């Protein structure tokens, strides 16, 4: 009984985390599913988003303006990865790893700006001292300051904008590049430009998520993005496995990444209550992703075989 109570008590927190990470998962969806590129920049750009937003806010900037700066910083990191990949011919995965690594040093520098120190690994934010857009402190409050409200509105706005964008000529050229680069080039699409643009948009969203997370949890840390790609993938894949058959519309597909992220955090909360240490989470996340990637593969493998057998029997 106690266990259930404490679990339900922590559910709002799981939803908050899930929504904030869900925006990051949408960024991962854009690269992994639409562009067919595994972009590892996100581990760095999430922290960059957090660092820039936190820095802006501690320096007295309007939190919305700080968030915009965070998004721009994320887009720049996406641009770097994109150029490393297309202009320098480095494989996409390695390009992402290089940018991610470089961002680690850069993030330490960003957070030290104005503090007198040369590097800094954490920037604390407090809802008492600064004006923040959201804070986990109000997660169980029934009021307008409840972070779930803002997160839900922002998520809806992100999905709406992306739904519009991927329906435009430019957005379609991105989708074509991911679906079939040969065809895209034959139709006059510069696939390199499309890839760079996709990486820019994706990392902008990831940094937005980082900027929101820093405010939500009350700090930006240089490590906040570690393993982010795997969490993003977990959200995308959980959403797909559970809802892929029902959610056909593009906006719903994006929503399923959000739902995937929420489910992920609910599960994490559950296992933490069951007595696992928070340091075990990385192992758990890796397992979840591995399992959810395996399911569709095995399903496809064995499902196809059965169909063939039946076909043979009918013939």
């Amino acid at each position, binding site marked *: 009984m106690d266990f259930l109570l404490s679990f339900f008590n922590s559910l709002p927190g799981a939803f908050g985390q899930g929504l904030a990470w869900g925006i990051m998962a949408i960024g991962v969806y854009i690269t992994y599913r639409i562009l067919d590129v595994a972009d590892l920049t996100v581990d760095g750009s999430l922290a960059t988003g957090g660092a820039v937003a936190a820095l802006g806010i501690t320096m007295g900037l309007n939190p919305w303006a700080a968030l915009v700066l965070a998004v721009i910083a994320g887009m720049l990191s996406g641009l770097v990865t994109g150029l490393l990949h297309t202009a320098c011919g480095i494989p996409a995965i390695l390009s992402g790893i290089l940018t991610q690594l470089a961002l680690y040093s850069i993030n330490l520098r960003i957070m030290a700006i104005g503090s007198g120190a040369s590097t800094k690994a954490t920037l604390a934010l407090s809802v008492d001292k600064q004006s923040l857009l959201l804070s986990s402190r109000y997660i169980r409050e029934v009021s307008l300051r409840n972070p779930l409200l803002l997160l839900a509105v922002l998520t809806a706005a992100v999905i709406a904008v992306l739904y519009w*964008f991927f*329906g*435009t*000529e*430019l*957005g*379609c*050229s991105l*989708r*074509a590049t991911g*679906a*079939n680069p*040969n*065809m*895209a*080039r*034959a*139709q*006059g*699409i*510069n*696939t390199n430009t499309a890839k760079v643009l996709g990486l820019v948009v994706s990392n902008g969203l990831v940094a937005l998520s980082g900027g929101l997370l820093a405010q939500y949890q009350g700090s930006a840390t240089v490590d906040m993005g570690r393993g982010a790609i795997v969490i993003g993938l977990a959200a995308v894949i959980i959403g797909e496995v559970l809802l892929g058959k029902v959610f056909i519309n593009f906006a719903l597909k994006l929503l399923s990444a959000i739902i995937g992220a929420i489910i992920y955090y609910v599960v994490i909360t559950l296992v933490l209550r069951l007595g696992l240490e928070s340091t075990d989470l990385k192992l758990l996340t890796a397992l979840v992703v591995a399992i959810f990637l395996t399911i569709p593969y095995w399903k496809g493998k064995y499902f196809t075989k059965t169909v063939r057998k039946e076909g043979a029997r009918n013939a």
Partner: protein
Amino acid sequence: MLELREIYKTFNPGTINEKRALNGVSLTLADGDFVTVIGGNGAGKSTLLNAVAGVWPVDSGTIAIDGIDVTSLPEHKRARYIGRVFQDPMMGTAATMQIEENLALAARRGKARGLKAGITAREREEYRELLKILDLGLEERLTAKVGLLSGGQRQALTLLMASLVKPKLLLLDEHTAALDPKTAAKVLDATEKIVRRDNLTTLMITHNMRDAIAHGNRLIMMYEGRVAVDVSGEEKKHLTVEQLLALFSQASGSDEADDKLLLG
């Protein structure tokens, strides 16, 4: 319309897999020429088309389309002038996108792509009409994902896409080779229809000698990276498979090439 001058292309130079695919090939196509291309495996047919399309840069020589030197233009920029259908039915369309979305992508070939709608209501009506030409019932399935279509349907759709914005040059790379005979005939039929309707300058590779003779106003046969036989006009109209084989033996100076050609 198309002018190739002394094109050379060697793959994997300096390695054990070195292959001189194009060996100084020159070719000029007049406006409205429908040229069928035959030749054995490794004769350089596909390489020739890829050189024109700009899949990779050539080693030397120049390529001009309608008087414009495109030799140094990348593939996506040359696409403004060129419609293409590939041998692999999977290659010409985006499987995860709808039929109408694929057509809308093709309708914007050679144009700047901005933040306007990727497809408009008026276009949908247009596409419905255009798809009727194919006679495959696709006009009723505009929003179906292309991945659900058969190979033949995909090739026919690719053909329509290649000609949606009238190209200065249509490149068909054995586009019926992967299809069953009945479907192949249908796609070939649609090809003939579209090429005639728009009077398209066309290069069509085929592995079928009869098709090569039956279609187009000119036939070229490639051998070792060059044009070995070039027949057009009246001579082409009355050509038989036997004559073609004889011409080829003459040009290549060997008899064993017959088998290679027929098998290829």
